[in-house]
């Protein structure tokens, strides 16, 4: 359905695991991103580009003539050289946009040429927004972004004692709940891409014994890395599904020969204690699931804990939560699912002072995801953690 928001019910937001493509890719240590396209396309994701990605990304604005005559191929190679030299890059990533879907550049050939000229690894990502609408299932990108982040890793020997990689979006904490659990279970080091330092440190990730996929999209990356680097993987991406979360933690413990039962009981108890009585204070809620993958799953979790979710706001192109949506419509058909594009944010836009500050997102894992929702509920009641 489509509709207007006509009440002042408290609004919860799920964890947003999908940040922009550029901030995701810019996490590769020593990488430079070069976006190629028309003026209109190079301005996408501007606010994050302006601050967070300054000196990590450059843009090559192509003219119509350059595109039509094929001159853009030489110009791209020339721009790549200038960028790499000036910024002293360790690797280079070319990003293209929809126009290229029509032009059909052979990027494999182009990056081979650039690699030869510059002597450093070069990859590319083709973005095609022509695939974007409704429930069309075509790939928006030529490769999953997360997969590309780890694609510069080269096979190497396994570390003597177990190292683990957390495969997830920006903001995964190397000292959060999951890292602490893994170290308790027997991991010597826990890597996240944001904590590897330089390109050489990044290559250490290839020596890990286990990859943990922290998002559903991360599973595909983990599978790819298993094939490429021989690193087995396990998921920890249950989001708001508590049963699945417990099973995933048990599997992680089992990998290291550790029984996670006691740890899980304590984790559950702590969560239940925080949730106690909140549903009586907050009888009706809304969920703003736009820009996130788990809006409906959060609504379901709230219903299961006694809250009533009246509306879930979604992007018009959201189509990723079929099972959660089936459960919701079967058990709580009174929850309205509103899909509408270009709706101003339900929560006020941040002031410019905040926009100007570089955002450092924190991506919660495991029970942290649920605690983040509880924190929002507690804030609505005016209280903090009890």
């Amino acid at each position, binding site marked *: 359905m489509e509709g207007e928001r006509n009440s002042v019910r408290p609004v919860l937001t799920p964890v947003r695991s999908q940040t922009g493509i550029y901030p995701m890719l810019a996490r590769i240590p020593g990488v430079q991103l070069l976006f190629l*396209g*028309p*003026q*209109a*396309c*190079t*301005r*996408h994701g*501007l*606010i994050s*580009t*302006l*601050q967070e990605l*300054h000196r990590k990304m*450059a*843009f*090559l*604005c*192509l*003219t*119509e003539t*350059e*595109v039509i005559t094929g001159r853009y191929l030489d*110009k791209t190679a*020339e*721009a790549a050289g*200038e*960028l790499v030299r*000036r*910024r002293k890059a360790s690797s280079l990533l070319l990003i293209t*946009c*929809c*126009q290229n*879907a*029509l*032009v059909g550049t052979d990027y494999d050939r182009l990056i081979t040429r650039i690699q030869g000229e510059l002597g450093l690894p070069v990859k590319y990502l083709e973005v*095609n*927004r*022509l*695939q*974007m*609408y409704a429930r*069309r299932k*075509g790939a928006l990108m030529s490769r999953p972004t997360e997969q590309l982040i780890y694609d510069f890793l080269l096979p190497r020997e396994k570390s003597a004692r177990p190292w683990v990689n957390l495969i997830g979006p920006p903001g995964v904490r190397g000292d959060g709940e999951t890292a602490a659990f893994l170290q308790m279970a027997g991991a010597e080091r826990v890597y996240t891409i944001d904590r590897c330092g330089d390109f050489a440190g990044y290559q250490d990730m290839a020596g890990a014994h286990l990859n943990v996929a922290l998002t559903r999209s991360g599973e595909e990356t983990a599978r790819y890395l298993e094939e490429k680097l021989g690193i087995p993987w396990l998921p920890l991406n249950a989001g708001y599904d508590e049963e699945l979360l417990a099973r995933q933690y048990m599997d992680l413990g089992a990998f290291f020969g550790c029984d996670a039962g006691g740890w899980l009981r304590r984790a559950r108890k702590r969560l239940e204690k925080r949730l106690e009585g909140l549903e009586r204070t907050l009888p009706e809620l809304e969920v703003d699931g736009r820009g996130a993958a788990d809006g409906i799953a959060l609504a379901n979790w709230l219903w299961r804990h006694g809250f009533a979710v009246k509306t879930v706001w979604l992007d018009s192109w959201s189509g990723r939560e079929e099972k959660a949506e089936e459960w919701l419509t079967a058990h709580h058909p009174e929850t309205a699912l509103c899909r509408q*594009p*270009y709706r*101003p944010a339900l929560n006020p836009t941040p*002031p*410019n*002072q905040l*926009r*100007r500050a570089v955002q450092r997102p924190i991506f919660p894992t495991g029970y942290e995801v649920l605690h983040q929702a509880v924190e929002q509920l507690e804030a609505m009641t005016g209280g903090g953690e009890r």
Partner: protein
Amino acid sequence: MRGLWMELPPFSPDTSGFASALSGTDGMGLIDDVRGCCGNYYGSEETRRGIPIRVFVSELGNEDAVLGTEGVLTRRCRALAEQLSPAFVLLCGSPIAALIGTDLEGIAGKLGRALGLPVSQVDLSGHGTYEEGLSKTLEAMARALSGPGERRKETVNILGANHLDWSGGDMAALRKWIADGSGLAVSAVYGGETTLSELRGSGCAGLNWVVNVSGLRAAQWMQERYGIPFLRGAPFGAAWSRALLDQAAKGGADWIPPAPGTGGGRALLIGEQYTCDALRRLLYENYGFSTVQVCSFFRMDRGCMASGDRRLWEEDELTQLLGEDFDLVIGDPLLRRCGPSRGRWIDLPHIPVSARLYDDLRPSLLGAGADRWLAAALEHSDTEED
């Protein structure tokens, strides 16, 4: 290297100029593109809070790029027209539409007959910068919407005032300020808040006052078509704006070159040409500067260029320029990234460069506002040095 942006973001595209020109009207704009162009504009560049969205994209998919976009564009336009009841519709192209050669003119004709509305098109490709989009859109509005009639000498059209170049406060105050200062009634504001009925009557105005380079194209067309004379200059600074008001009341005059002061200072102003020219006059008259150069990364009006003024095409040109011996530089805060300047720097945020990032710091320049702003900025700048 031309087209390569390493320190600065790519500037606002022509589609943003299109969106800005239409956003304050009772018409509707439709960009024949995938989703993204509107997202750029409304997400990063539109500064008016709560303004109704008037510009959309046709939401092209792969199949439309192969089979032609007429079907999807027509369906989308009809659906939106039913929902919004616009007074008129303008279509514009995009990198996709330009590459496949969509006949927007033909489609506009058919849509106009089907909807019973004025429907026209603007020849844009997403490869140009905002002022090209703005100036072509304003010209298209004049061509499609204005009509001839008996000349009303006591009326004036304002051409080119827009929210990308001007602060919200100046845009809101403009009509009354002109009416109060010149005794003329404002027929239409091309680029700002205006209606179809005002635009229809704009062909009878006694004068076109071009307050921004983007308004020049429409003014030249209206001079040729209706014989309306035009006056050029941004009404910023007490003395210069008074002179412009007097010229407007007399029916217009040729652009008057600025007269340098005798104090010996040297300044560089980077931004929209007419705005910078008005500030130059202030620096000459109030502060005795003897050399003030106006440079811009955007289209410049040759007829209003003084010695040393030039258009910039690349970052390196600005870096080189900033290395020269200027006592004062005024420009967008992001331009500082192109190199240290020996002189004092005053920030003048410009949406086509830094998007909404510094919107709260955009000054009010209308009339004596520029005198106050510059005095305060120079004083603050002096204090910083001390």
